């Protein structure tokens, strides 16, 4: 479950004020809004990447408003994947578990499991340079899921993909979030994409989040 209560966040020159919404456990929530409407700011605040002025953020029932990003149990998939240019796909999938001090055999098992689920086993020894947009997003998704987070936040993850890859990734997102039992918050400006992927649609209008 993701619950946002009376959240106020400041980003540069503008402020998102008094935002409240809830995405029940296991749901795939989609937050829509025009470019510059503050969708990414809200997502960053939930992930712990943006300081909150006031209000509360709950993840799986726990108040995480003042917790650091890494302690919130949230997997983050940025818009362009933001892959680590010097690391192989294998190292990407192993990154979170390694930071969390997992045993090397557990890390190996998890990497193989994720690579199979996401269809990237053949890419494990490749670096990001030269990967297609769809492959990059699969790697970013695997990296975010590696430490088994309860919540997944995706910032326009499909915006730079061609139509075929877009459809493939939508199917994959639905399957993976269901299989891995995560609650998702997906941001997009496309209502078509929102309808295809989400089961709870929200819209940000004039600084307020309303059901669509």
């Amino acid at each position: 479950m993701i619950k946002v209560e009376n959240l106020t966040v400041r980003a540069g020159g503008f402020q998102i004020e008094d935002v409240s919404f809830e995405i029940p456990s296991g749901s795939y929530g989609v937050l829509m809004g025009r470019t510059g409407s503050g969708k990414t700011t809200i997502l960053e605040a939930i992930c712990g990447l943006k300081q909150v002025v006031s209000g509360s953020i709950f993840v799986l029932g726990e108040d995480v408003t003042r917790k650091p990003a890494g302690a919130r149990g949230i997997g983050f998939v940025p818009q362009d994947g933001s892959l680590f240019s010097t690391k192989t796909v294998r190292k990407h999938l192993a990154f979170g578990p390694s930071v969390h001090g997992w045993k090397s055999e557990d890390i190996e098992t998890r990497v193989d499991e994720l690579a199979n689920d996401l269809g990237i086993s053949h890419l494990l020894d490749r670096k990001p340079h030269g990967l297609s947009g769809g492959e990059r997003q699969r790697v970013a998704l695997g990296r975010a899921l590696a430490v088994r987070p309860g919540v997944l936040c995706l910032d326009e993850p499909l915006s730079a993909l061609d139509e075929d890859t877009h459809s493939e990734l939508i199917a994959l997102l639905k399957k993976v979030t269901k299989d891995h039992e995560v609650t998702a918050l997906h941001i997009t400006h496309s209502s078509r994409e929102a309808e295809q992927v989400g089961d709870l649609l929200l819209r940000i209008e004039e600084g307020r989040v309303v059901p669509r």
Partner: protein
Amino acid sequence: MVSSSSDRPFLAAMASLALMYLLLILLMLGADAWYGFTKVSGSQLLGIFQQENVQHSILLTLFTCTVTAILSVIVAVPTGYLLSRYKFPGKLFVDAILDMPIVLPPLVVGLSLLLLFNRFPSEGSSFEDLLNKIGIKVTFNVLGIILAQFAVACAFSVRTMRNTFDQISPRTEQVALTLGCNRAGAFFRVVIPEAWRGISTAGTLAWTRAMGEFGPILVFAGAIPRKTEVLSSTVYLEIATGSLETAVIVSLMMVTIAVVVLVAVRVWDRGSQGGLYHD
């Protein structure tokens, strides 16, 4: 890209200007090489390298440049990172100060160091006097060479590292934070590997810049044979005493060292970072 015939005058003008500068560099180096090959015999060459002060100068140059490059990188990485990632009051002013060693005349840097260490806060209780009491000598010593080189070379490294961090998206660090890293963890696990090419450029630039440094070294550390004489001061001393042959040979050696360092770093850099597979 398809180019039309109307593009040719534009491209020709651009290429001519670039070629003029390239030609000037090559002609300068060619003049050194020509003079060396026509005026210096094999036995003279051997004699120059057997001179004790030249041997000492070579070793001292290699040592001081290496120490300066390492110190410059150690200081430039955090400085460049802070300038790139954070906004703070007076940032423009700090940025301008960090560029001062680049724009200041080299002799002014040397004079400033000399005054800082020997007249500040007052003669008789200066930094140099305090350091001398604990057995450390800077002015007209090897430490003085390193400090004079560092004062200028580090500014170039800071600029390089700032540009490097500007080009690395903060998003990768943020992803690392969500994966459980703290700021230091994200910096060392993600940012430093991404910045590696910039770090090697900053180090190389500092090394070669330190080798070419002359003015501040002459003023602050002097050019004492077998003590504070580095290759750039050898060239100066040999010209001053009319030994143009030795000056030219040492100059050619500096050019060779600079080219070897630049090429070696680029080759190593490409080998370690450029592949599509593995880390």
